[in-house]
């Protein structure tokens, strides 16, 4: 992965939020794909590989939590960050149970988002390293 730009899939039903966040992530050195719903996210993940998925909880149709469960079922190696409107401990527990690594409070600054994505990438690298050396 060295030298390659980490790939992030941003899933949010607010188009403007998606577009601007993707631009800013691009500036910070990430290769970004976007999806406007849980279904679109699953389709995009089938087409292209990603390292981290940033997933909004509240979306019409398939909710972020449902999408998280499905993403983890299909591609357990992908790290998933959850964007949520409020930091409910219960929601966090649900997210953890489904394999989501962390959650971010919305609205979050780009610095917070980038920090969490970088930590997710580190975790992914650690997991891959330990799988290679059983």
């Amino acid at each position, binding site marked *: 992965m060295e030298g390659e730009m980490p790939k992030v899939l941003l899933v949010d039903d*607010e188009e403007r939020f998606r577009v601007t*966040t993707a631009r800013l992530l691009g500036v910070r050195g990430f290769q970004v794909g976007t999806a406007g719903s849980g279904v679109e996210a699953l389709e995009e993940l089938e087409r292209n590989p990603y390292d981290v998925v940033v997933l909004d909880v*509240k979306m019409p149709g398939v909710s972020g939590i449902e999408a998280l469960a499905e993403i983890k079922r299909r591609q357990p190696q992908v790290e998933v960050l959850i964007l949520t409107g*409020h*930091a409910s401990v219960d929601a966090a*527990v649900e997210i953890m149970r489904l394999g989501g*690594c962390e959650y971010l409070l*919305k609205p979050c*600054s780009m610095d917070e988002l980038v920090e969490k994505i970088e930590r997710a990438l580190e*975790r992914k690298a650690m997991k891959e390293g330990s799988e290679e050396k059983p």
Partner: protein
Amino acid sequence: MLKSTIELARYGIPWLGPAMAFLGGLALLAEGKGQWPAIAVIFGSVLSAGGIYSLLRSLRKGEKERALLDVRMLQSHKLASLGELTAGIAHEINNPLAIIGREAEWLEHLLSTMPPAEGVPRKELLESVREVGVQVNRCREITQNLLSFARKMEPIFQKVDVNRLVEDMVKLVETETQGKGIEIVRDYQQPMEPIMTDPPGLRQVMLNLLNNARQAIEGRGQITIRTRALEDGRVQIAVEDTGCGIPREHLPRIFDPFFTTKAHGKGTGLGLSICHGIVDRLGGRIWVRSEPGLGSTFVVELPATPKRAS
């Protein structure tokens, strides 16, 4: 119906005797049987009147209590609706707020990377757009406070597997301690009978205690989480850290609101006070043992069934 019958029996039985004496005396008096029936009538009537008075008072008191309960129920329903409404509004505001914040960051990026142009007050524009970001953060704090208020509901008691709940929270905090030299040791008593408690409340307590333990450790250290069931069904959960410990003079104040020894901006001083409030509402107690330089142990003790839920 059954309740009313029981109530009537409870208040009725004490004056049943005097009433019988009164009626019996009256019957004997009617037959003209002298002085003793007359005394029985007087004695019985005084006690019966007292009994009737006390019954009426009790019933009225019961009614008053019921009315008070209705008001409290109404108040709690009102608060619940207000909470739901507040949470809904705060949640909806967070989305446009996120967009405003993001657009401001994008503008800031564009402004700071564009070449200087004549007539464009770049410094002022940058200042202005940064202020938008500052105000977005301020709004975020407000919406988060509203959401916290919405969550300050009365506890809803249900059967809880303490070990599982504790483990969920330990896992959550473990993501923060990974690779930072903090070892987490689990010492759960198995098996453990479920207790009646409020899961969101207990989760909040555990999260606060575990985060405090994490923050108390500078460099390498260990957090041990113990669960124990006592003979009478009470459960103890202990969070022990090998961190900096609490100075003796601070110990009496650590559960006070706004008391903090953390650096400015690092802690609100509300975490332990919130824990104390929640544990109290759950019918339990919380205490701490601490040795400066060696670490602290916070113990939460909860009843198997809180009195108010039984």
